[in-house]
């Protein structure tokens, strides 16, 4: 690599100018180092949120107040869920792929945990309240053969819950005036006090996911 800030040592009569250039050169290189450093931090910092150890740098900001409706019509808030850890996932019943895959996976993991499997709740929040009534969600989660608390609310209530979990969803129009929904595919593992402990990513390996759940109830 060529030196982008060359000194002019072939001009010995200009000593002062050469010293000045040397300082400028040093400052410029420090700036380059700073930019690289900031870039590296930006690249690797988000990984810490989903590391296998479950370390989470954002734990203070994920989770928070919400109020939604259960299939039986009862209201469920963040306070209702306190006292028992829970795994919470956002989706919609017309989701053909990620939602059944994830809910089925959670059911399987719970089964693998044996008696400890009862020590946490599985919560599914529909981000499609215009389509999914609380009753619809109740029938949907019943397909997975394990107790799953299905919730939804008004658009505003759903938005509030999604925001509280730093999750994401967005309706995307399809042909014929219909829509599908892009949404966060991660499962948030919340401790008994409602604080984020770790996240199971969509592509998390089975052993990693199981270890995280065991730690959640441990």
């Amino acid at each position: 690599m060529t030196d982008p800030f060359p000194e002019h040592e072939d001009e010995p009569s200009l000593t002062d100018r050469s010293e000045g250039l040397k300082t400028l050169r040093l400052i410029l290189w420090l700036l380059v180092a700073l930019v690289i450093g900031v870039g590296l931090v930006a690249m690797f910092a988000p990984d810490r949120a989903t590391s296998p150890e479950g370390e989470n740098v954002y734990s203070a900001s994920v989770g928070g107040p919400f109020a939604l409706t259960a299939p039986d019509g009862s209201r469920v808030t963040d306070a209702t869920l306190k006292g028992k850890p829970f795994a919470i996932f956002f989706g919609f019943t017309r989701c053909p792929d990620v939602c059944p895959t994830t809910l089925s996976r959670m059911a399987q993991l719970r089964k693998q945990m044996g008696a400890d499997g009862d020590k946490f709740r599985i919560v599914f929040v529909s981000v499609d309240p215009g389509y999914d009534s609380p009753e619809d969600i109740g029938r949907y989660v019943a397909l997975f053969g394990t107790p799953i608390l299905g919730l939804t609310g008004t658009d505003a209530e759903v938005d509030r819950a999604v925001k509280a979990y730093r999750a994401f969803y967005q309706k995307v129009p399809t042909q014929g005036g219909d829509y599908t929904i892009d949404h966060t595919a991660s499962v948030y593992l919340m401790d008994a006090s409602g604080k984020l402990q770790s996240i199971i990513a969509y592509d998390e390996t089975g052993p990693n996911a199981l270890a995280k759940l065991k730690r959640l109830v441990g």
Partner: protein
Amino acid sequence: MTRPFFAAALLASTIIITACNPAAETPAATETGASIIAISEPWSRETAVGQNAGGAFMTIANTGTAADRITGGSTPVAGRVEIHTMSMDGGVMRMRQLEDGLDVPAGGEVTLKPGSFHIMLMDLKQPLKAGETVPLTLTFEGAGPVVTELAVKPAGAMAPGMEHGEGEHGGHD
């Protein structure tokens, strides 16, 4: 033989030769009939009452010598049949309708599976029940309509042979 007839015969034979010679340097889409489509292991997942859409998965092989494309389809159990793809983008699942259809290359195959391409049965008229079979007609640009039957599996199934969604599945394969 009159001249117009000769011209027509020449034209017809040219068309036939083109149709029978998929190796010719012409766009695949014009080589009607030169693709041979076979659908294997078509399956779907059980749905709940009120869940008005379901996914369908299968392997589509084209043993012909011209490329083909799925452009749509129909089934008595749903109002619409759409072709979708799915991708993960920084922890967010993004589903997109393939409005131009899905290519099935000559001599190749396309697997529709969870986490990838899939057929969407939109506006379901009835729930899909595990253990049942559901007829599905897929429309191919070259091969025309191809009829298949989806085997409905439990909601948690990840592959056609799996009954209870057991095993490792992380959406990456």
